[in-house]
Protein backbone atom coordinates (compact mmCIF):
# COMPACT_ATOMS: atom_id res chain seq x y z
CA UNK A 1 0.00 0.00 0.00
CA UNK A 2 1.72 3.13 -1.24
CA UNK A 3 0.81 6.79 -1.65
CA UNK A 4 3.21 9.23 -3.34
CA UNK A 5 2.80 12.84 -4.39
CA UNK A 6 4.79 15.95 -5.25
CA UNK A 7 3.05 18.94 -3.72
CA UNK A 8 3.42 22.14 -5.72
CA UNK A 9 3.24 24.62 -2.88
CA UNK A 10 1.71 27.32 -5.11
CA UNK A 11 -1.35 25.13 -5.71
CA UNK A 12 -1.58 22.73 -2.79
CA UNK A 13 -0.62 22.14 0.85
CA UNK A 14 1.31 19.38 2.58
CA UNK A 15 -0.62 18.11 5.61
CA UNK A 16 0.27 15.63 8.31
CA UNK A 17 -3.46 14.98 8.80
CA UNK A 18 -3.65 13.36 5.35
CA UNK A 19 -0.74 11.09 6.22
CA UNK A 20 -2.41 10.16 9.52
CA UNK A 21 -5.66 9.25 7.78
CA UNK A 22 -3.80 7.13 5.22
CA UNK A 23 -1.88 5.26 7.90
CA UNK A 24 -4.98 4.71 10.06
CA UNK A 25 -6.77 3.15 7.11
CA UNK A 26 -4.10 0.42 6.94
CA UNK A 27 -4.87 -0.91 10.46
CA UNK A 28 -1.29 -1.99 11.17
CA UNK A 29 -0.12 -1.85 14.77
CA UNK A 30 3.00 0.32 14.56
CA UNK A 31 3.29 3.63 12.75
CA UNK A 32 5.77 6.48 12.46
CA UNK A 33 5.32 9.85 10.83
CA UNK A 34 8.56 11.58 9.84
CA UNK A 35 8.27 15.27 9.16
CA UNK A 36 11.21 17.05 7.50
CA UNK A 37 11.32 20.82 7.98
CA UNK A 38 13.54 23.72 6.92
CA UNK A 39 16.17 24.32 9.62
CA UNK A 40 17.50 27.68 10.72
CA UNK A 41 21.28 27.29 10.36
CA UNK A 42 23.32 25.54 7.71
CA UNK A 43 27.11 25.82 7.58
CA UNK A 44 26.98 28.86 9.88
CA UNK A 45 24.56 30.73 7.64
CA UNK A 46 21.17 31.91 8.89
CA UNK A 47 18.53 30.32 6.72
CA UNK A 48 15.11 31.93 6.25
CA UNK A 49 13.65 29.58 3.65
CA UNK A 50 14.24 26.99 0.97
CA UNK A 51 13.19 26.56 -2.64
CA UNK A 52 12.75 22.94 -3.68
CA UNK A 53 12.90 21.86 -7.30
CA UNK A 54 12.12 18.40 -8.59
CA UNK A 55 11.88 16.30 -11.70
CA UNK A 56 8.42 15.09 -10.76
CA UNK A 57 8.19 11.96 -12.91
CA UNK A 58 11.62 10.68 -11.91
CA UNK A 59 10.98 11.46 -8.26
CA UNK A 60 7.73 9.48 -8.21
CA UNK A 61 9.47 6.64 -10.03
CA UNK A 62 12.24 6.62 -7.43
CA UNK A 63 9.69 6.56 -4.57
CA UNK A 64 7.99 3.55 -6.16
CA UNK A 65 11.29 1.74 -6.64
CA UNK A 66 12.37 2.40 -3.06
CA UNK A 67 9.02 1.08 -1.82
CA UNK A 68 9.29 -2.06 -3.97
CA UNK A 69 12.81 -2.91 -2.88
CA UNK A 70 11.97 -2.77 0.84
CA UNK A 71 10.30 -6.13 0.31
CA UNK A 72 13.53 -7.83 -0.82
CA UNK A 73 16.12 -5.79 1.07
CA UNK A 74 14.37 -5.29 4.40
CA UNK A 75 12.00 -8.28 4.18
CA UNK A 76 9.12 -6.01 5.20
CA UNK A 77 6.15 -7.34 3.29
CA UNK A 78 3.10 -6.02 5.12
CA UNK A 79 3.33 -2.23 5.18
CA UNK A 80 1.68 1.07 4.34
CA UNK A 81 3.88 3.90 3.08
CA UNK A 82 2.95 7.53 2.49
CA UNK A 83 5.50 9.88 0.87
CA UNK A 84 4.83 13.49 -0.05
CA UNK A 85 7.52 16.03 -0.96
CA UNK A 86 6.99 19.68 -1.67
CA UNK A 87 8.13 21.72 -4.64
CA UNK A 88 8.55 25.51 -4.47
CA UNK A 89 9.41 27.93 -1.65
CA UNK A 90 8.86 27.14 2.02
CA UNK A 91 9.87 29.24 5.00
CA UNK A 92 11.83 28.38 8.11
CA UNK A 93 10.23 25.56 10.12
CA UNK A 94 7.81 24.61 7.38
CA UNK A 95 7.43 21.04 6.17
CA UNK A 96 9.27 19.85 3.07
CA UNK A 97 8.63 16.11 3.30
CA UNK A 98 6.33 13.71 5.10
CA UNK A 99 7.12 10.01 5.26
CA UNK A 100 4.55 7.98 7.14
CA UNK A 101 4.89 4.24 7.53
CA UNK A 102 2.88 1.53 9.22
CA UNK A 103 3.94 -2.06 9.81
CA UNK A 104 2.99 -4.98 12.04
CA UNK A 105 5.85 -4.32 14.48
CA UNK A 106 7.67 -1.21 15.74
CA UNK A 107 11.18 -2.37 14.84
CA UNK A 108 10.09 -2.74 11.22
CA UNK A 109 8.50 0.71 11.24
CA UNK A 110 11.68 2.41 12.47
CA UNK A 111 13.87 0.60 9.95
CA UNK A 112 11.48 1.28 7.08
CA UNK A 113 11.10 5.00 7.82
CA UNK A 114 14.87 5.51 8.09
CA UNK A 115 15.57 3.50 4.94
CA UNK A 116 13.12 5.53 2.86
CA UNK A 117 14.47 8.97 3.82
CA UNK A 118 18.10 7.92 3.34
CA UNK A 119 17.37 6.46 -0.10
CA UNK A 120 15.39 9.53 -1.17
CA UNK A 121 18.37 11.71 -0.31
CA UNK A 122 20.65 9.53 -2.43
CA UNK A 123 18.39 8.80 -5.37
CA UNK A 124 15.45 11.15 -5.90
CA UNK A 125 16.04 14.11 -8.27
CA UNK A 126 15.20 16.89 -5.84
CA UNK A 127 17.26 20.06 -5.42
CA UNK A 128 17.41 22.69 -2.68
CA UNK A 129 18.16 26.38 -2.92
CA UNK A 130 18.75 27.99 0.45
CA UNK A 131 17.72 31.58 1.12
CA UNK A 132 19.65 33.50 3.77
CA UNK A 133 18.93 36.39 6.11
CA UNK A 134 21.31 38.64 4.14
CA UNK A 135 19.09 38.15 1.03
CA UNK A 136 21.64 35.89 -0.67
CA UNK A 137 20.67 32.44 -1.89
CA UNK A 138 22.45 29.40 -3.26
CA UNK A 139 21.78 25.94 -4.64
CA UNK A 140 23.16 23.33 -2.29
CA UNK A 141 25.82 20.96 -3.53
CA UNK A 142 24.40 17.53 -4.07
CA UNK A 143 25.59 14.11 -5.09
CA UNK A 144 25.76 13.08 -8.75
CA UNK A 145 23.04 10.63 -9.72
CA UNK A 146 24.18 7.31 -11.14
CA UNK A 147 23.68 6.84 -14.88
CA UNK A 148 20.90 4.50 -16.00
CA UNK A 149 19.63 3.76 -12.52
CA UNK A 150 17.50 5.65 -10.11
Amino acid at each position, binding site marked *: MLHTKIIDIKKDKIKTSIAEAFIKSSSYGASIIFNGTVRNINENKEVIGMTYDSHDE*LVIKSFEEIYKETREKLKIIDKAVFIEHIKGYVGLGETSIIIAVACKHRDQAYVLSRYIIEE*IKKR*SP*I*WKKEHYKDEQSE*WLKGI*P*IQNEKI
Partner: protein
Amino acid sequence: MKIKLELFGASRDFSNKDYLEFEIEEQLEIKHFRKKIINYLNKNFKDNGAFIKIVKTSAFCSEDNQIINDNYKITKNQKIGIIPPIGGG
Protein backbone atom coordinates in the same frame (compact mmCIF):
# COMPACT_ATOMS: atom_id res chain seq x y z
CA MET B 1 17.18 18.77 -35.46
CA LYS B 2 16.05 20.59 -32.34
CA ILE B 3 16.87 19.57 -28.77
CA LYS B 4 15.03 21.17 -25.89
CA LEU B 5 17.15 20.90 -22.75
CA GLU B 6 14.93 21.06 -19.67
CA LEU B 7 16.69 22.70 -16.73
CA PHE B 8 16.48 21.56 -13.11
CA GLY B 9 18.13 22.56 -9.85
CA ALA B 10 21.31 24.60 -10.16
CA SER B 11 21.17 24.43 -13.96
CA ARG B 12 18.12 26.72 -13.87
CA ASP B 13 20.63 29.55 -13.54
CA PHE B 14 21.73 28.88 -17.15
CA SER B 15 18.67 30.73 -18.47
CA ASN B 16 15.69 32.88 -17.52
CA LYS B 17 13.50 30.19 -19.05
CA ASP B 18 12.98 26.60 -17.88
CA TYR B 19 14.87 25.28 -20.87
CA LEU B 20 17.54 25.88 -23.50
CA GLU B 21 17.16 25.06 -27.18
CA PHE B 22 19.90 23.69 -29.39
CA GLU B 23 19.83 23.33 -33.14
CA ILE B 24 21.84 20.27 -34.08
CA GLU B 25 22.77 19.29 -37.64
CA GLU B 26 23.30 15.58 -37.09
CA GLN B 27 22.73 12.80 -34.58
CA LEU B 28 24.90 13.11 -31.53
CA GLU B 29 25.69 11.28 -28.35
CA ILE B 30 25.14 12.72 -24.89
CA LYS B 31 28.88 13.12 -24.35
CA HIS B 32 28.99 15.45 -27.38
CA PHE B 33 25.80 17.20 -26.33
CA ARG B 34 27.50 17.92 -23.01
CA LYS B 35 30.22 19.77 -24.96
CA LYS B 36 27.59 21.78 -26.83
CA ILE B 37 26.12 22.92 -23.53
CA ILE B 38 29.57 23.92 -22.28
CA ASN B 39 30.13 25.88 -25.52
CA TYR B 40 26.85 27.71 -24.89
CA LEU B 41 27.97 28.56 -21.34
CA ASN B 42 31.35 29.78 -22.57
CA LYS B 43 29.63 32.09 -25.02
CA ASN B 44 27.08 33.48 -22.60
CA PHE B 45 28.65 33.61 -19.15
CA LYS B 46 31.95 34.94 -17.86
CA ASP B 47 33.47 33.25 -14.80
CA ASN B 48 31.38 30.19 -15.56
CA GLY B 49 33.50 27.56 -13.78
CA ALA B 50 30.67 26.62 -11.42
CA PHE B 51 28.24 26.22 -14.33
CA ILE B 52 30.65 24.01 -16.27
CA LYS B 53 31.20 21.86 -13.22
CA ILE B 54 27.44 21.36 -13.02
CA VAL B 55 27.32 20.15 -16.63
CA LYS B 56 30.26 17.80 -16.12
CA THR B 57 28.72 16.21 -13.02
CA SER B 58 25.13 16.01 -14.29
CA ALA B 59 23.23 13.01 -15.55
CA PHE B 60 20.67 13.35 -18.34
CA CYS B 61 17.22 11.89 -18.83
CA SER B 62 15.23 11.11 -21.94
CA GLU B 63 11.68 12.14 -22.83
CA ASP B 64 10.38 8.85 -21.45
CA ASN B 65 12.00 9.54 -18.07
CA GLN B 66 14.91 7.14 -18.30
CA ILE B 67 18.36 8.12 -17.06
CA ILE B 68 20.61 7.88 -20.12
CA ASN B 69 24.36 7.40 -20.32
CA ASP B 70 27.01 9.26 -22.31
CA ASN B 71 26.68 6.86 -25.26
CA TYR B 72 22.94 7.46 -25.73
CA LYS B 73 22.40 8.82 -29.22
CA ILE B 74 19.95 11.64 -29.89
CA THR B 75 18.43 10.89 -33.28
CA LYS B 76 15.35 13.10 -33.50
CA ASN B 77 13.78 16.27 -32.15
CA GLN B 78 13.32 15.66 -28.46
CA LYS B 79 13.38 16.93 -24.92
CA ILE B 80 16.33 16.01 -22.73
CA GLY B 81 16.46 16.81 -19.02
CA ILE B 82 19.66 17.76 -17.26
CA ILE B 83 19.90 16.23 -13.77
CA PRO B 84 22.49 18.08 -11.65
CA PRO B 85 23.79 16.47 -8.43
CA ILE B 86 20.79 15.87 -6.16
CA GLY B 87 20.08 16.41 -2.49
CA GLY B 88 16.46 16.66 -1.44
CA GLY B 89 14.46 15.54 1.54
